[in-house]
């Protein structure tokens, strides 16, 4: 037996450090764990402000900030073929074997996957969010997703509900979609060293205060809960358009001493805010997989959440209380959680989350997906084009045309800038020798 195959992975997305978020931390943690397993990972994203060019992060993770400016909500301008030269250069330089794109909303991801398939590389796609079907923006985005997934090798979704949503949106074969959830860095999110006393119950809310995250539900629920339970206090971290409504609610019901608004909480301080509370409240109206709930559970808080999307799959029933997204049911759920509190042991909860979720496990399962992707046979352009014709009577032909032009441009580039003239990068392995010293070892191709 040869031993496990060493993959050379290119992660592509518009969303990466220095931005903070679910997709960004997913890419970072997954890359770090894959490097620890012995694979080579390179990340490609667009330039953030002055941060352009090649940067190295922890563990030798190489990040290409390609010099394209974002134009709308951190997305690069979609030019279809403009990114072909640079993606080709990166793929040849780093001798990539698998291209892994993240997030359906990222234009760079779709373009990179299109170029990767044209040039014959294996492609994997991860979808991180749930989307609708019926409004104009969603219809167009689903069509783009259908184009990308028509010729993808494997796809990954972060929850079973997300898998159903992705399969319906894109028409991909369900056997091609793997369900690998996110995880949480339990070393960073540890419970408070001393257990809090239960005289005053503190309910923590940390989210962006926007419509999608259920800030309007909070406005209805908080006064009711404060009225019914005199010993409850709220701590709200986060900022957004609905913050004004929450401040108004505070004024209207005179809850200034019982509702504390912290404003935007930097990522490094999220843990200290979480461990100051007993219960974590999540009122989102839609979530594919809520990492915030995992972070709260890792810190030993009992979670109360709305039953939407993939949330029921995230935690076992004794660590979360679910409610319908109505004020009445959420008040009932909070009351139930307060009664459950004395039986909760934060340290035991943290240990359980450590066993249930780990990024190493996610990386091992993703490795299986890469192995499966590499087993897919190589197909020529003529064999790939019929896959696009299935997308629709008009769209299918348009997509075929787009891919044919991409192929021709690639041939032109191969003639103009041959692969032999692109210098290949030697691998640098970060090793620890017996004295636990970190040293780098150069490995020539």
């Amino acid at each position: 037996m040869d031993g496990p195959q060493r993959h050379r992975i290119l992660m592509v997305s518009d969303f990466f450090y220095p931005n903070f978020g679910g997709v960004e931390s997913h890419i970072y943690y997954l890359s770090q764990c894959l490097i620890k397993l012995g694979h080579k990972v390179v990340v490609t994203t667009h330039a953030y402000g002055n941060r352009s060019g090649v940067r190295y992060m922890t563990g030798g993770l190489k990040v290409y900030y390609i010099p394209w400016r974002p134009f709308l909500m951190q997305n690069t301008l979609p030019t279809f073929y403009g990114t072909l030269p640079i993606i080709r250069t990166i793929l040849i330089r780093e001798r990539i074997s698998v291209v892994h794109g993240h997030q359906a909303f990222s234009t760079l991801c779709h373009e990179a996957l299109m170029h990767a398939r044209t040039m014959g590389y294996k492609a994997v796609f991860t979808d991180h969010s749930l989307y609708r079907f019926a409004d104009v923006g969603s219809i167009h985005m689903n069509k783009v997703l259908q184009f990308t997934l028509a010729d993808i090798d494997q796809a990954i979704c972060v929850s079973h509900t997300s898998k159903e949503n992705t399969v319906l949106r894109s028409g991909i074969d369900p056997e091609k979609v793997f369900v690998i959830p996110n995880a949480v860095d339990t070393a960073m999110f540890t419970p408070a060293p001393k257990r809090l006393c239960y005289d005053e119950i503190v309910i923590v809310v940390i989210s962006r205060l926007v419509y999608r995250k259920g800030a309007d539900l909070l406005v209805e629920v908080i006064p009711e809960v404060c009225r019914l339970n005199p010993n409850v206090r709220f701590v709200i971290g986060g900022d957004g358009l609905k913050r004004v409504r929450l401040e108004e609610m505070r004024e209207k019901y005179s809850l200034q001493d019982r509702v504390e608004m912290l404003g935007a909480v930097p990522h490094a301080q999220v843990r200290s805010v979480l461990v100051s509370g007993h219960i974590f409240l999540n009122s989102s109206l839609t979530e594919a997989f809520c990492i915030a709930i995992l972070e709260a559970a890792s810190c030993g808080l009992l979670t109360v959440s709305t039953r939407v999307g993939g949330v029921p799959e995230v935690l076992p029933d004794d660590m979360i209380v679910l409610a319908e997204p109505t004020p009445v049911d959420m008040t009932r759920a909070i009351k139930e959680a307060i009664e459950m509190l004395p039986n909760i042991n934060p340290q035991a909860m943290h240990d359980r989350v450590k066993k249930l979720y780990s990024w190493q496990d996610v990386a091992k399962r993703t490795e299986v997906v890469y192995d499966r992707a590499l087993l897919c046979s190589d197909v020529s352009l003529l064999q790939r084009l019929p896959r696009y014709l299935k997308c629709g009577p008009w769209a299918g032909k348009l997509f075929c045309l787009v891919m044919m032009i991409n192929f021709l441009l690639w041939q032109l580039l191969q003639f103009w800038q041959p692969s032999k003239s692109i210098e290949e990068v030697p691998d640098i392995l970060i090793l620890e020798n017996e004295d636990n010293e970190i040293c780098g070892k150069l490995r020539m191709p």
Partner: protein
Amino acid sequence: MESEAKKSSGKHKWRKVAYGGMQPGYDDNYTDDSFLEGMVMNANVVKRDLFKVMLDSVSISQYLCIAALVVIVWIQTLHSVIDEISLLSLDAGLLGLGFLIILLTTSQLSFHLFLHYLMKISFFISGLYILAPVYHTLTRSISSDSIWALSVSLLLIHLFLHDFSGYTIRPPGAKNNPTLASNISLNASIIASVLIASRLPSRLHVFALMLFSLQVFLFAPLVTFCIKKYSFWLHLWFSFILMSMTLSIIFVMHRMLFVLLLALIVFISIVCPYWLIQIQEYKFEINGPWDEAKLCFEITE
């Protein structure tokens, strides 16, 4: 042997959960039989009846005929067939007729409200009379071709974006706000009236035609809505009379336009409902646990 039998009988049952890592005995791409069992298709779709859709399309043909009548009056005034005195008497007649219809069909019109309306209308008429000289010289430097082209396009925009089910000018106390599209259509019709009126010879002409056009565009939807609400049969009779009147006037004026209008009315009343019902069978509305939750309460700012 025993342990093997135990293993096969104690096979872990697949659960729809994300925690606990890979479920033993199942790959990550395992698709259970319960896949997509929460999906609901076409939950809110209403099955339509051909005859009812045809009756509903009468509102559209009716408004089309009203717009055609306005255009006929414009053309006749521009060709000096109708003089300003008859225009003014037409305005007064339409105003009286409109008020009568609203009085008869709406039961709750108090005397106070009637006086309120009367005051508003007199302000409107006096304002228009004062501004008539401005409109008279407004487009003097613009060529006639641009005016006709602009008016035609504006009228088309007005017809496309018009709200056929309601009315944009709300009486006081109405609850729903008009939509953006109906506001745009109303503005387009007003601009078209101003452009056409500015081509007329005298200020009195301008005033009379502007008053006529604005009366029709602003208040005709309200009047037709009141008629429809009062009695559906009255609405059908009114539309039928209106359509025949329009068609007969155009028949006298111009044969080809008559054929065009007739074809358009037939298309709207018969072909479109049939087509709508035929393509309804392609409707595919998907709902499921992945939907964004709808709030059950109103957000009061």
